[in-house]
């Protein structure tokens, strides 16, 4: 097919799609307009009309955002997107929708003078529109938290884990942070990939918290027990930041493990919460500052074979 005939075919499909939308045949319109966008994703008008016949508001939002990515000045898309977002927001009230567009059938806000999705003449240009790829987030959200463990904290943790290992006769004990990063390990871990174990344990506890939420449990499930034939595994939160994994022989009474775990959580909590000494924090900042980023970049280039 020559470029000219392809363009003609796309134009014909687009016109047929718009005609189907105008007569209210949304399913047919979607089918035709999708054929247009799959052959030429830069067809702004096709995305706009697709938004008008979209099955869901989320789909309409996506199509309008694509139209805006193609042409940020497209006022119909701007207005349509604002309207769709207002409907998707939890504050949106169903009572505001009182009629539908005679052309595309989209619900219309009570005060709309034209269809926000396919209307011929929008009433005003958007002035506070989010960029297409942007996201309307909260005004201020804290940046990703970093977690710093000082030498003193690490030594206190080691001493605590030694004590737990001795008292519980645990096969091994692992302390990790909630993102799955290994902090300390004690016991028989030689043949165990403790880093992977930490990642899996963190994922599992996170899933357990979500399970608690889904079943309507207000408090988080704080403990998780896996019973095996030879070994059992206990997982528990330690405050908001850390998780503790204890692997023990099935011959060890579970009641004892629970008691020791409870004690361990009580001991570890205050260690984690105490702020690192200012001198150590300064030392960390000095290490990470200056040329650290450049040196890391160089090391990455060497280590990643490129």
């Amino acid at each position, binding site marked *: 097919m020559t470029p000219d005939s392809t363009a003609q075919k796309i134009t014909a499909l687009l016109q047929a799609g718009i005609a189907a939308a105008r007569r209210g045949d949304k399913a047919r319109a979607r089918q035709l307009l999708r054929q247009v966008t799959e052959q030429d994703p*830069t067809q702004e008008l096709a995305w706009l009309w697709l938004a008008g016949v979209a099955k869901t508001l*989320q789909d309409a939002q996506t199509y309008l*955002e694509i139209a805006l990515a193609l042409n940020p000045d497209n006022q119909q898309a701007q207005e349509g997107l604002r309207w769709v977002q207002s409907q998707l927001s939890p504050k949106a009230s169903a009572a505001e929708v009182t009629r539908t567009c005679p052309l595309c059938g989209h619900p219309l806000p009570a005060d709309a003078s034209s269809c926000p999705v396919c209307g011929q003449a929008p009433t005003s240009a958007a002035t506070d529109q989010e960029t297409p790829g942007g996201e309307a987030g909260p005004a201020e959200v804290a940046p990703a938290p970093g977690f*710093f463990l000082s030498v003193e904290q690490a030594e206190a943790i080691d001493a605590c884990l030694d004590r737990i290992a001795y008292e519980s006769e645990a096969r091994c004990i692992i302390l990790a942070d909630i993102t799955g*990063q290994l902090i300390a390990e004690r016991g028989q871990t030689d043949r165990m990939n403790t880093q*992977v174990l930490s990642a899996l344990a963190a994922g599992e506890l996170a899933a357990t918290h979500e399970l608690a939420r889904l079943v309507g449990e207000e408090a988080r499930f704080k403990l998780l027990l896996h019973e095996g034939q030879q070994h059992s595994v206990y997982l528990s939160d330690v405050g908001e930041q850390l998780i503790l994994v204890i692997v023990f022989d099935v011959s060890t009474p579970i009641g004892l493990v629970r008691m020791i775990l409870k004690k361990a959580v009580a001991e570890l909590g205050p260690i984690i919460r105490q702020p690192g000494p200012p001198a*150590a924090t300064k030392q960390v900042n000095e290490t*990470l500052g200056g040329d650290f980023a450049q040196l*890391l970049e160089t090391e*990455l280039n060497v280590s990643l074979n490129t």
Partner: protein
Amino acid sequence: MFINWKLRELNLKIVYYGPAMSGKTTNLQFIHDHTSPQVRGELVSLKTREDRTIFFDFLQLELGQIKGLKPKFNLYTVPGQVLYAASRKLVLQGADGVVFVADSQISRLADNIQSYRAMHQHLIELGLDPRRMPCVIQFNKRDLSALTPVSLLTRYFAVNGSTPTFESIATQGVGVFETLKACINLVMAQAQRQL
């Protein structure tokens, strides 16, 4: 970011996010297969019988010491299938940086956008600001036919011009390491700004 000063370790978590079948696991597989055993750990995949990621893939990379500090990068993928939205949010928890792997095929354009939007929503729900999260966009599968033009993808995903984007063919490794390095560099630059 987690710093263990006693062990002199710097840990970063990088999450590969994107719609189903966009090539997130393929990125990690290529990184695993093309780094020396001294640098890489075991690649762990929690997947279904159909070989689809059910929870996450995990790979740790460990570099030599820099100014006395050993960097460790924990790379995760999220499960792309629509069904696993809750799992995706869990994996994003604690991320220091994100690689968004978009599928360049025209037929997947809307899926990419919906996945990207959902990622932002998850970050907000986790108390993280998507605008401050170091993020690199990878336009994958550039070797296939019927592709969305890079210009359109860039206009949507990198609208402010400061988000790094890479064209890639993850199955062949094209753009894979470049994407990862760019994300790590963004994370470090952000950490330095916060000092």
